[in-house]
């Protein structure tokens, strides 16, 4: 199979004006991916599916990834020559920069006909609040239909051109997108005698230990 760089070059030649970058994967799996711009996403996906060399006829896996905005601390070193003629001083300047967050959708493409893959395709939204629309690839691969609904439900990415974009796992009235990293879950933990560490931490928030000895716990009202 072609390398991601070769696919990128062919895509750029075929779609002038499009943006395609190879995202290098540092792990031993070496599954490098192609980051494509949303404006040309669907045309490029159709090209990858129909291209006789690649023939990526199966979109196996669609998933979202949440990248919240994060603070990046950059250290810049400057060398200041000592006016007295001694050794030059090194001054470290620290600058803080907020890297904007985004939501990312990852598609794993395989070829059933030619038995190769994966080609990993990624698209990113502008931010995590209002510019969250990406083109739907359901017209290209049917398998994206439910998986894109899932990404919409859990991450809040809106897919333009999806035939039936509704929540799929949570109920329709639900407002949050629970797979986002900043999702706050409802606090309905009770105190239990032998809790898991994280459960205990959450339960303590809900049931702070009273300062004075409290009365014995009230038994649940017997109804059975």
């Amino acid at each position, binding site marked *: 199979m072609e390398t991601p760089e070769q696919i990128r070059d062919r895509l750029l030649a075929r779609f002038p004006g499009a943006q395609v970058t190879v995202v290098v994967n540092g792990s031993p799996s070496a599954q490098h991916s192609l980051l494509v711009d949303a404006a040309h996403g669907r045309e490029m996906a159709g090209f990858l599916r129909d291209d006789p060399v690649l023939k990526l006829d199966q979109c196996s896996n669609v998933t979202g990834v949440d990248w919240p905005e994060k603070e990046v601390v950059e250290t810049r070193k400057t060398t200041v020559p000592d006016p007295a003629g001694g050794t030059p001083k090194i001054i470290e300047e620290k600058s803080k920069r907020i890297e904007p967050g985004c939501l990312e959708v990852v598609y794993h493409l395989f070829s059933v006909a030619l038995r190769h893959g994966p080609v990993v395709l990624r698209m990113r939204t502008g931010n995590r609040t209002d510019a969250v629309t990406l083109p739907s690839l359901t017209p290209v691969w049917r398998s994206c239909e439910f998986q894109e609904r899932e990404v919409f439900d859990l991450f809040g990415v809106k897919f333009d051109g999806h035939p039936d974009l509704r929540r799929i*796992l*949570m*109920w*329709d*009235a*639900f*407002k*949050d997108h*629970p797979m986002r990293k900043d*999702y706050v*879950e*409802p606090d*309905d*933990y*009770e*105190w*239990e*005698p032998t809790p*898991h560490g*994280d*459960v205990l931490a*959450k*339960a*303590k928030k809900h*049931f*702070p*230990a*009273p300062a004075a*000895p*409290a009365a*014995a*716990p*009230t038994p*649940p*009202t017997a*109804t*059975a």
Partner: protein
Amino acid sequence: MDQIAPTTVPITDAERDELRRHGILLTGLEELYNWGRSRSVWPLNFGLACCAIEMIAASMAKFDIARFGSEVFRPSPRQADLLIVSGTVTKKMAPQVVRLWNQMPEPKFCIAMGACAISGGPFKQGYNVLKGIDRFIPVDIYIPGCPPRPEALLHGLVQLQEKMRGQTISGPDAPRHLRADLDCDCPIPEFGEHDLEPPQNDILFQPPASPVRTPKA
């Protein structure tokens, strides 16, 4: 049923055995009633998750729940006596489980099978997982395990039968269905914007108080 006076057995067990040897069966109404219903519990054919497979296994050849009179799994809640909550109850599923419980006629019983049905189990920290079905419906028997083995389910069923045999049919300790002052229906929670509304049935479930460490003198 309120008019029935408490049944008393004026003869000893030895005398009863003597009568039985002569082909005369002497029993009380309460004993007969409880014996009959405890030996013919019909569970609802209702599987939720992993535990449902073990529930099916309990009804199959090797474990054979029919030995305890409970092989008649009814698909309709109208015909069932026993709700086996076999698996994780999610918040999306909880209103349906409560509705099924309300649709079952009295006398009815509930077994919480497995860690998830008891407290949320390994999935307790999930945002969509109900942390125990006893927040919405009254539970009679809890069976721990993830999943409990079929033998554990059978043990739970035997325990339930014990419980049924110990019930009196009149007086202040009479079960729910024989009393006019208790409402048998549980309110069905509704889907809210972030969670179920209400998140629990406060009459049935009150979270235990957190432990208090007395300061050292």
